[in-house]
Structures are given as structure tokens and as C-alpha cells.
């Protein structure tokens, strides 16, 4: 599937793994932002990535729990950044340039700088 082709079902896109230009995992398509007016053409404007993107798809009690544990952050990835859609959504640029590496960067601060064997 190409990003400029017709997406007949949002379900084909939602919950797919996102990888950046370097092939690094950088989130899941938690939801999509649509643009358009009634009677007009509906277009996908952006991919929504993060707890703020998927929390509203959950039951109320679970939503509150997610907000408590994971917060309400959500990164909007413009649709033009999507290069291809297969079993993953591939982006044109690196995760850091799109704000998709903040969670990993926060977690890295907790880890000691001890190396490992290759």
C-alpha cells in the first residue's frame, strides 16, 4: 500500500508498528487525525502516537489508569512523513526529528553507562 493510495479502512493503518528512516521502532499508530468537511473529501492529516492518541479508544476506567501511569502525551506525525505502509508504517525521517524518541531518551537517563559484548 502506498501513502498516496486510497485508504479504504482506517483499521488497516491503526495499531501498526511505526519505524523511522533508520529502521528503528518508534511507536504504534495509536490513532489518526482526519481533515475535511461533511460532504467533502476526508483526508488523513497525521498519525497520532502516544497515550493521548490511544486513551480515548479505551473504556473510561482504563483511560484514567493510562493517564495516571503513562500521561497524556501525543505526538502528531504529519501524513507527508509516511514513506510506505506494509506490515509496518515506514517514515521518511529519523524518530528524533519527529519528536518520537522522547520516551526512550527519558528512560535512558535511568540506565548506567555499562557496555555489553557484541
Amino acid at each position: 500500500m502506498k501513502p498516496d493510495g486510497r485508504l479504504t479502512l482506517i483499521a488497516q493503518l491503526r495499531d501498526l508498528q511505526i519505524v523511522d528512516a533508520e529502521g528503528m521502532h518508534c511507536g504504534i499508530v495509536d490513532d489518526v487525525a482526519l481533515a475535511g468537511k461533511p460532504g467533502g473529501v476526508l483526508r488523513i492529516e497525521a498519525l497520532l502516537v502516544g497515550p493521548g492518541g490511544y486513551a480515548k479508544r479505551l473504556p473510561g476506567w482504563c483511560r484514567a489508569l493510562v493517564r495516571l501511569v503513562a500521561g497524556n502525551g501525543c505526538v502528531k506525525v504529519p501524513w507527508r512523513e509516511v514513506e510506505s505502509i506494509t506490515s509496518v508504517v515506514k517514515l521518511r525521517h529519523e524518530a528524533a526529528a519527529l519528536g518520537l524518541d522522547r520516551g526512550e531518551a527519558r528512560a535512558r537517563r535511568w540506565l548506567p553507562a555499562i557496555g555489553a559484548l557484541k
Partner: protein
Amino acid sequence: MRITELALGILTAVGGFVDVSELVFMSQAGSRFGYALIWVVVISTIGIMVFGEMSGRVAAIAKQPVFNLMRHRLGLKLGLIVLIASFLANLITCAAEIGGVALVLRLMTGAPYRLMALVATLLFIASVWVLPFKWIERSYGLLGLFMLVFVAALVAIHPPWAALAGGALPHVPAGLSHRDLLAFGYFAVALISAVMFPYETYFYSSGAIEDKWGPKDLGINRLTAIVGFALGSLLAISLLAISAQMFGPAGISPDLVGTPALQAAVPFGTIGLLLALLGMFFAISGAAIETCLANAYSLCQFFGWRWGRHQPPRNAPRFTLTWLAVFAAALVIVLTGVEPIQLAEYAVVASILVLPLTYLPLLLLAGDRHFMQAYANGALAKTLGWGFYALIIVAAVAALPLYLLTSGGAL
């Protein structure tokens, strides 16, 4: 080179087949029902071969591990329920494995159980942090081959081979009381769960991606799943059969994790005991690491984070923090003093409840030609897959009532 890879893969699967739940339930089942439950082990082994092969094939072709697919196929809500349930089941299993290793270390050194649990956990953390994925998998899997001493012990005690082979034919022993019939059902379900633990497919498919499998690796995948699991199953059946001959007639119920080690001590003396304890140590340690990593894989894959030990720990920080937290939580459970046998019982019951949800998306995806193209399930894989899926559902429905009615097989 490919033959070496294949041999190592198969040997690793054999050495890594047995974990603390199998040790406990194989020995108890043999002691209580003789050879009568061997057929359940045989059928479950074919089941794990089918689903293991499928998860490796999906990983090699769709390049997606189980939990990525689960969320996409089942949707966010159902996927989240599966994630939470399997996470808890794996956590309990990991705690049972750490407790099992601590008991083996206590038998070998005489040091306090809780101290040994702490030492074991620190050893696992150091192993996972420092060693690359293949080394972790291979070192514990290959050293787990010390467990082959149980196969040698079975041959050495000259079992009644005809009766043993008869146990492989599906049957329920005649003349069982109502109470024994319920216990037989409970042990059958527990053995299915112990052989087909969900973490095995999470770990297997994630491992296939860590090892960068592609279509050229499908032969290795098939042979590893079939030959490796079959030989591993022989090891498990040896535990059951020795127990049937050695403990059953003497009225001994092997209720301690260390008891199976005596199965090798009787024919081979101190050397047998030492080899058995070493085999148990490495096999259970491997399972502890696999269950812990399976949880880290599943959480990270569900949320799309970086994961894997093919990269340094700081390059996949959320994955690293997750497995560190899982080891810490499992250790806390062990330090509360819950018996490892009790944890193993909870683990098999919790795992069988999760199994149907784990294998459904795998079955759907392995049969999906959009993702799998020419490598989608054929007629045989479909028939076997859905057949075993039906068996798992029956076992999952029966598990909790049987556990409660038999007080965990104690009746």
C-alpha cells in the same frame, strides 16, 4: 555453517525445553498415574511444534513478532487484556523459575534460599545485560543438556518399555475413583499448559527477529520446532517415566523442586546427582531469562518501543528498564516466601487461561495471504492449528474448575 547453526538451534531447543513447571508436574504425574499421562505430553508437544513453527514462520516472513500482530488483529482493547493477562502469567512463571533456581542452588551450596534467589537474579541480570542474544540463548540452552542424564537414568533403570510405550496411546486408566478422575484431568491440563507455555512463542518469534530470520531460514525453523521440541519432549517424558517407576510404587509424592534430581542419583550416584542438579540449574535459569524477556518483548512490541538484545541495553532503554523491573518484581514475589511449587501451579493455571488469546492472532496471521503470501498456512497447518486451538480452549475452560475441585491436584 548452516548445519552447525541447525545443530546448535536444535540442541538449544532441547536444553531449553524443560522448566520448573515441567519438572514438578512431570514428576508428580508419573508418581501418581504411572505412564498414563504420557500421551498428553506427546499431544501437547505436537501442539507446541505447530504453534512454534507458525510463530517462527510469521516472524521470518511478516517480520512481525506476536504482540505487534496481536494488537493489530485483535484491536487495542482485547489486545490490552491479553497483554495484561499474559504479563501477569509470565511474571508468576518467572518468579517460579527464580524460586526453582534458588532451591537448586540451596541444594548445591547449603546457603539460605532467599540469598540464593537474590544471587540467581543478579546472575540473570548480568547475563542479559552483558551477553548478546545468541549467547544468552545458546549458553543456557546448551548447558541445560546436562538434563540428558535423566534420559540415561531411564535407560539404566530398565523400565517396562511396553507399558511405557502404551502410555503414549490416548486413554484414561480404568477404575479411577471420581476424585482420581478429577485429579487426572487436572494433571492433563497442567501438562498441556506446562508444555505449551505462551512465553515460548513470544520468545521464539522475538528471537527469530533478533536473529534476523528471513525466508531462507524457514527450513531451520521447521527442523528446530519439530526435532528440537520432540527431543526436548523425550527429556520431559523421561522425568515422568522414571518417577512412575521409582516414586509411584514407593508412595513418594515429589512435592519438592529438588526431588527429581534423585531420579539420576539412584542409578548413577553422586555424579548423577551433580549432573542432574547442574542440568536443572541451567534449564530453569534459561526459562527464568526467557519468561522475563518475553514480558519485556510483549510490552515493548505492544506499544511499538525499541526492543531486543541485538542492540546494546542503552539503545533500547524502555526494553531494558522493563526486563530489569520484571526481574525485580519476580524476585520480590519469591522473597515473600511463596513456595516455588505453589508458584508453578499458579503459573500453569494462569498460562492456560491466556493461551487461547495468545494463539488466535497467530493462527489468523499465519493463514493471511496478504501478509504471508506463498508462506501462509497450508491445509495441514490449518487443520493442525485449529485442531490444537480447540484443544486449548477445552483445557482453558476446564483449568480453573479442576484446580479448585482438586485443590491443585492435592486431592
